């Protein structure tokens, strides 16, 4: 089954606020195997000019992937999540994420296409503070392998 192209251009309401915790950042830094003290030590982060510990550059995915589920798991889209792998990812960063941030994000479907028997969906999540100050934008392309009608037919 191919994806429903009418989803292209759809924008979703701002997501529920996500409050970034110090221990979540530490847990994420541990999981990626990065001992950088700026991810763990608030005093070191303050000394470097930040209000609290900062999160690693890819941390926004924790927030943006959840926001992306609004479309990814929408049965009307027709995406078989068991066949999904990550195709591309890009972050454009205004400032790092800090512990204590209260973040939200607006999801937009930038593109849907079929290529080489695969279905591709590209989404954009613009992450801001709850007051609307920009933090980062995450662009994700997910690939459902071998699900496109191109091959089925």
């Amino acid at each position: 089954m191919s994806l429903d192209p009418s989803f292209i251009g759809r924008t979703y309401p701002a997501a529920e606020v996500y409050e970034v915790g110090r221990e979540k950042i530490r847990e994420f830094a541990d999981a990626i195997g990065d001992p950088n003290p700026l991810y763990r030590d608030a005093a070191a982060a303050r000394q470097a000019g930040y209000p609290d510990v900062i999160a690693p550059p890819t941390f926004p995915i924790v927030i943006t992937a959840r926001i992306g589920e609004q479309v990814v798991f929408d049965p009307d889209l027709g995406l078989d999540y068991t066949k999904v792998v990550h195709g591309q990812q890009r972050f454009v960063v205004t400032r790092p994420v800090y512990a204590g941030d209260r973040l939200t994000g607006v999801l937009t479907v930038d593109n849907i296409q079929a290529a080489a028997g695969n279905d591709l969906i590209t989404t954009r999540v613009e992450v801001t503070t709850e007051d609307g100050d920009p933090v980062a934008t995450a662009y994700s392309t997910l690939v459902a392998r071998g699900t496109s009608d191109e091959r089925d037919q």
Partner: protein
Amino acid sequence: MTATASVAGPVPAYDSVAEGTELAEKRSRIRRADLIRYCGASGDFNVIHWNERAAREVGLPDVIAHGMLTMAKAARIVTDWLGDPAAIEEYAVRFSRPVVVPDDEDGAELLVTARVAKKLPDGRVRVDIVARTGSDESGWEKVLSMARAVVVLP
């Protein structure tokens, strides 16, 4: 280049950086337990990252690492060089090949290299990153393509 990159700064000065400069390579291992840990930390519990049967059912050779785990580990070559990870303004990758993680003690090895590809205006520099999996004995295969970071230097 100094080897003391663990604490913030000093970020390398724009004028001190030349195109073609190679960053210090990074090697790390990804084992099954690391995938479970990343599932929990990231919230991405896709079965292909922890269940061999499910991975094979959808045509994968075995459990594969989260692309985002590979992307995070590859970023470290840049953040350790910078000292301050916040100097990254843009970071993008294509996941060209999965990192297959066998159920054994060794797991998969990730080898990351990078170089300063281009000096851009306004203190910006583009770093091109290459991430490979494999071993020195069996050879290495690229798992990321077009992996690039744009960083802002003082």
